[in-house]
């Protein structure tokens, strides 16, 4: 116990005037009585009384002095150091990233962190305030800055760990908006410290409470399917992010039936690969699991799922006068059968996709088309040569496409209808457009406004990616343009009212904005009437699989290692308000004694009975 304000002991000098006043107070009031005879006798009895009774006479003085003592003791503001508690305003950043689900501390890192926060909340003083920020992919405040413990505990109980990586920069922005960096505000970070390097930017007083003690984890980091001559084969990669070599039993199942199982030796910090052939090519989906491992503290990355699209074939018609780059790019795409022609063939067969390379032909109604260079679908209004790259819109066909090194000599200015949106724009105008029409001749279209031969695009890495993305978007493998592999929490664009079967077997109908209940890894199947299919939700987050805690994380401007943090994770708990409360009670007692005299149980002599009359 220590004192914050020892100079307040000077207030103890107030005892002097109190005692002086008590001595001066013995100015007696006059009261006539019929005779002092009996009073004198009563006093004579009292003279023989003990010291205690003389003390009792000064009870008021004693009570006043004790009251003063308590008040002075409250004014010097004594405190005790309470471990793990906080005082003042505090912002708690609670890491809810996937690595917090690791079970190296029982029951899990997240639950351990939750217990620590609960201790912090219960240790809050009367005037202390706290706010909780849950840090996952989209950090959010669970409660406002408050001193209401029950509100904070309710908010804490509502927190759930996510399968995302933590977005620490957004969390820091949120903390700063809440008041981090202020004089009396302390920011507490409860995290395993993995992948939290951004925390060095946290302003003001900050404190890091490390959670977790082991980084041993094996994960299935890849599962892919491919069609081979012998049928369907799967490729599994198991990564060991721990510090010791690991023997891992991995099993592979096709539509729930075991295909193969194998023990893999995975060296520390490395990976092992396994290729399994002879899988039933008609299987809808395949999943790989880690069934046994010595030291594996994160469960969520122990399974991976893949949807088999190898048995679906799409037919594309390439209309060109000869373009080796384009032919190569299309021919390399799995599941796509390309028919090359120089003119529109007379047969009535409809193709899933029409690719027009500088050709002006009439397309059948509701066709999906990739239009390159000169085309006859949309009118043009001249040519522009100011083709410096400006920006890329977010669109499935532009995913992973790096346009920065692409040079285009000139491009056509297309009078595109409203539904055709620019995807890649240059200073002069759009270079690539894409869109989906509800009623026009075309259903889906991707338009490249320049001739491939008048650019170096076919020589760039961007070209095959753009073509692959475009084909995938224009003629999806499952009829619907549904991605085969999504991350947990991602929204899957599925038409409204599509029935989706969750991995648990439950059926859910997709809403207007697609299907969002992808919070559990696994295989999701859907039935949209004209198209059936499946997609896999995979954790497959390599960085979150590396769960090694980093207790020496730099948080804020001070570099605090774990020991310093633990020793500094104490707070000064003042208890002056208890002392002031006791002083108030004593003051009330003093007033009561003054008004009423001593209570009956303190009196030594009982009240005598009146003489008989």
């Amino acid at each position: 116990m220590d004192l914050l304000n020892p100079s307040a002991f000077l207030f103890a000098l107030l005892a002097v005037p109190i005692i002086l006043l008590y001595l001066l107070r013995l100015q007696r009031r006059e009261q006539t009585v019929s005779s002092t005879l009996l009073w004198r006798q009563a006093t004579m009895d009292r003279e023989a009384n003990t010291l205690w009774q003389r003390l009792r006479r000064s009870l008021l003085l004693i009570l006043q002095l004790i009251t003063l003592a308590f008040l002075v003791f409250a004014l010097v503001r004594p405190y005790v150091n309470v471990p793990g508690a906080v005082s003042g305003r505090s912002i708690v950043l609670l890491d809810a990233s996937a690595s917090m689900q690791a079970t190296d501390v029982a029951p899990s890192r997240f639950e351990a962190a939750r217990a620590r926060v609960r201790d912090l909340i219960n240790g809050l003083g009367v005037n202390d305030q706290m706010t909780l920020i849950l840090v996952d992919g989209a950090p959010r405040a669970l409660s406002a800055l408050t001193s209401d413990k029950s509100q904070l505990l309710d908010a804490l109980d509502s927190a759930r760990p996510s399968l995302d990586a933590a977005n620490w920069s957004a969390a820091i922005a949120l903390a700063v908006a809440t008041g981090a960096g202020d004089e009396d505000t302390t920011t507490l970070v409860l995290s395993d410290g993995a992948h939290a390097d951004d925390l060095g930017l946290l302003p003001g007083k900050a404190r890091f409470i490390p959670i977790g003690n082991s980084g041993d984890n094996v994960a299935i980091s890849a599962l892919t399917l491919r069609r081979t001559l012998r049928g369907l084969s799967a490729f599994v990669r198991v990564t060991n992010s721990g510090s010791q070599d690991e023997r891992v039993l991995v099993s592979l199942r096709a539509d729930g039936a075991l295909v193969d199982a194998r023990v893999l030796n995975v060296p520390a910090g490395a990976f092992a690969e396994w290729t399994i052939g002879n899988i039933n090519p008609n299987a809808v989906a395949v999943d790989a699991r880690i069934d046994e491992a010595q030291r594996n503290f994160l469960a969520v990355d122990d399974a991976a799922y893949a949807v088999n699209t190898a048995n679906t074939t799409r037919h594309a018609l390439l209309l060109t006068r000869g373009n080796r780059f384009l032919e190569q790019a299309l021919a390399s795409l799995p599941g796509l059968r390309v028919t090359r022609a120089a003119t529109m063939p007379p047969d009535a067969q409809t193709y899933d996709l029409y690719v027009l390379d500088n050709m002006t032909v009439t397309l059948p109604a509701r066709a999906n088309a990739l239009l390159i260079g000169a085309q006859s679908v949309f009118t043009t209004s001249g040519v522009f040569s100011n083709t410096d790259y400006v920006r890329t819109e977010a669109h499935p066909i532009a995913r992973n496409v790096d346009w920065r090194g692409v040079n285009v000599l000139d491009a056509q200015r297309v009078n595109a209808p409203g539904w055709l949106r620019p995807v890649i724009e240059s200073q002069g105008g759009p270079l690539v457009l894409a869109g989906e029409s509800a009623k026009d001749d075309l259903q889906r279209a991707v338009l490249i406004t320049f001739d491939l031969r008048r650019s170096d695009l076919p020589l760039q890495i961007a070209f095959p990616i753009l073509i692959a993305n475009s084909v995938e978007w224009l003629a999806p493998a499952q009829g619907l343009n549904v991605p085969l592999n999504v991350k947990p929490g991602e929204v899957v664009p599925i038409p409204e009212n599509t029935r989706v079967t969750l991995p648990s077997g439950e059926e859910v109908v997709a809403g207007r904005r697609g299907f969002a209940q992808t919070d559990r890894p696994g295989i999701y199947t859907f039935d949209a009437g004209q198209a059936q299919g499946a997609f896999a939700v995979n954790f497959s987050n390599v960085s979150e699989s590396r769960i090694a805690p980093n207790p020496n994380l730099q948080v804020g401007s001070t570099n605090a290692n774990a020991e310093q943090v633990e020793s500094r994770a104490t707070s000064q708990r003042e208890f002056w308000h208890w002392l002031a409360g006791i002083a108030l009670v004593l003051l009330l007692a003093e007033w009561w004694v003054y008004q009423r005299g001593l209570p009956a149980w303190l009196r030594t002599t009982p009240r005598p009975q009146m003489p008989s009359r």
Partner: protein
Amino acid sequence: MLSEAFLQSLRTLRLNAPRRRVGSLTGERRSVKRGRSVEFADYRNYTPGDDPRRVDWNVYARLERPYIKLFEDEEDLTTHILLDDSPSMFWQPDEEADGQHLAQKWLCAAQLAVVLGYVALASGDKVVLETSSFQRFGPKRGVASAAALIAFVERVSATDKRDLRAAPTGRRQPLNAWLKRYALDARPGLCILISDMLDEGGYTEGFNALGNSRLDVNLLHTLSADELDPQFTGDLRLKDVETANHQDMSLDDAVLSQYRQRLTAWSEAIAAQVRRRGGRYHLTDTSLPIEQIVLKDLRRAEWLV
């Protein structure tokens, strides 16, 4: 001072003399000594137990109802009422009200004196009333003197109050001196002392003197509620209204409790003194209504029958 209705209700009462004394018998009571009647005084109704020889047969022959002849002289009982009017009898705790009206304590004592005197007069006794300031009424007998008795007590109240205001402590008469002086020329009989007994000099000598003069001392001990159960608290300087002595006290519950213990012991000592001399003792709280004291408490204590 007392309502007519209350006085009427007293007419059926009599003073109960606990024992008979030779030479001090009233006509009300059966005589052990032959009456030497010299002077006719009055008739009264025959009551069972009266000596049939004293029935006036001539009257009986005429009216066919027995009457007893009463005679003056030593055959009657003299009732001595000694009313203490020392300043302590006029005390009341709040001095503000002092000038407005008489203290409750004195009023009660004066009313008791009138009641006892009236009962004695009504039952044919001779009544003498003396105050401690030596103002005397009587001896008188017969109910006709009741008005004079009431007027006397009222006069005493008025003069005492005036005197007290002029000199609050100057008129103190020690209890012993008063009783001894009264005993000198008192006829034997029933003696009723109405006093608070608050006297520094005590009371034993006075009681002895009265006893020697063959007076039965009956004590009506009048104490006010503020004396029986005082409610003072705090640091006080207690002033004696009679002696101007003062006593510094810090009153708390413990002191008050001591006071009540002393009061109990003191009143019991007085009661023992009175009873040892064959008299009766009654402690009266003067804050009670006079009707309750007279018609209930005194009858229960068998002072009045």
